């Protein structure tokens, strides 16, 4: 028998501690809601208690003392898209590009960074960007506070390493480096500006002279989780970027991808597109490094 989406209780705690306590006390059947743009589409039947984390003061963006950036879990996509501290700033810039590519304006006004990460969608735009930017996810749970490297967060489609009573509090991004730039590209079904990614990529490269010192290539919608194309990235490191090198990096990334067929595209198309998108994103990022 289906019971539909029928939570029995809603709570709007005022502090992270209170939120965690509510989750712990209730145990299974408790769930977190922030912007609601994913939860109220999925409408999970098992939820009994909804803990609203949007009133915990997690909607700030702060530059940290050592030059890093702390983005609160409840910062919305719309806020990230326009934040002047983020737009075009080295590895941070991919976040605002990804935020701008996420959903419709009404969704961007509500969808949060923390939600986009916690849902564990392989196609999550912000997750791919945070992956490329080498972010760390700060969480709070029962008696613990963790800093999880983003690549450790995802376990599979819709699955993360977060405990049921653990919430995302913030994302920490490393300081932008000299000569660093990124790019986010999202392939959608054609003639559509609003869509879940068929394939997405976020790349961050750091150039010194003509040489690539560091590269990170993240891919979306081509595996069970957002993923890093580590071989393609290490292939680039130490190389002078040429059209050919960039093309090869794309091809390596395509081999690393583990796509599946679904309603949006076939696995083989996705794999081909990884090569194209990674190459184009690297060309864009490389151009930005030079600019």
């Amino acid at each position, binding site marked *: 028998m289906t019971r539909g989406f029928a939570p029995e209780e809603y709570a709007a705690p005022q502090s992270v501690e209170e939120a965690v306590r509510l989750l712990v006390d209730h145990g299974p059947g408790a769930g977190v809601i922030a912007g609601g743009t994913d939860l109220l589409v999925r409408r999970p039947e098992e939820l009994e208690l909804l803990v*609203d984390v949007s009133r915990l003061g997690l909607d700030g963006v702060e530059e940290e003392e050592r030059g890093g950036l702390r983005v609160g879990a409840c910062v919305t996509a719309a806020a990230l898209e326009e934040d002047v501290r983020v737009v075009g700033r080295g590895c941070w810039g991919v976040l605002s590009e990804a935020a701008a590519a996420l959903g419709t304006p*009404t969704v961007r006004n509500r969808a949060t960074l923390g939600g986009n990460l916690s849902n564990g969608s392989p196609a999550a735009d912000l997750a791919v960007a945070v992956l490329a930017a080498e972010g760390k996810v700060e969480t709070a749970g029962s008696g613990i506070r963790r800093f999880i490297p983003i690549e450790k967060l995802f376990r599979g489609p819709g699955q993360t390493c977060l405990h049921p009573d653990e919430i995302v509090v913030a994302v920490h991004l490393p300081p932008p480096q000299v000569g660093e730039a990124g790019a986010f590209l999202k392939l959608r079904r054609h003639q559509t500006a609003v869509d879940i990614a068929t394939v997405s990529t976020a790349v961050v490269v750091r150039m010194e002279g003509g040489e690539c010192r560091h590269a990170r290539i993240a891919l979306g919608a081509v595996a069970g989780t957002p993923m890093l194309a580590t071989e393609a990235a290490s292939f680039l490191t130490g190389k002078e970027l040429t059209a050919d090198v960039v093309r090869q990096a794309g091809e390596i990334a395509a081999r690393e991808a583990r796509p599946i067929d679904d309603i949006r595209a076939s696995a083989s198309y996705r794999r081909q597109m990884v090569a194209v998108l990674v190459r184009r994103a690297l060309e864009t990022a490389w151009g930005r490094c030079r600019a």
Partner: protein
Amino acid sequence: MTASRVSMVVNGARRELLVEPHERLVDILRGRLGLLGVKEGCGEGECGTCTVLLDGKAVSSCLMLAAQADGCEILTIEGLSAEGTLHPLQEAFIREAAIQCGYCTPGMILAAKALLDRELDPSEGAVRRAISGNICRCTGYDKPVKAILAAARQMREDAR
């Protein structure tokens, strides 16, 4: 089931309501407050017909719990011409023949208002992007976009 007490300002009037945890904002606005200009076209935030302004920002009222609107200010299409005079956007939509079946119109006008409240001289591209959450099956968006740009012009003139 535990109901939550919600206090919100809807179209300028304070409303105190008891809402259940599963109730969405759209359910309350339509079912309880009789604001039937708020439409529901998909229930998953894709179509934009349930768009309302929440503290000035366009949101899908189907993707928000009513309880989450506690302490917020909400504007629906009914509140836009509350004093009997039409908003410049409404006038422009009427004049420019930007309305056909009319089911998307309230949401689209509100999404446009959120844009114009922030930017009174938007580019055509910015207008299109601002209403990209509002599907229209009738017009091809041509006349709605022209109407929004015309309303912006009018509002700039009025502001002078």
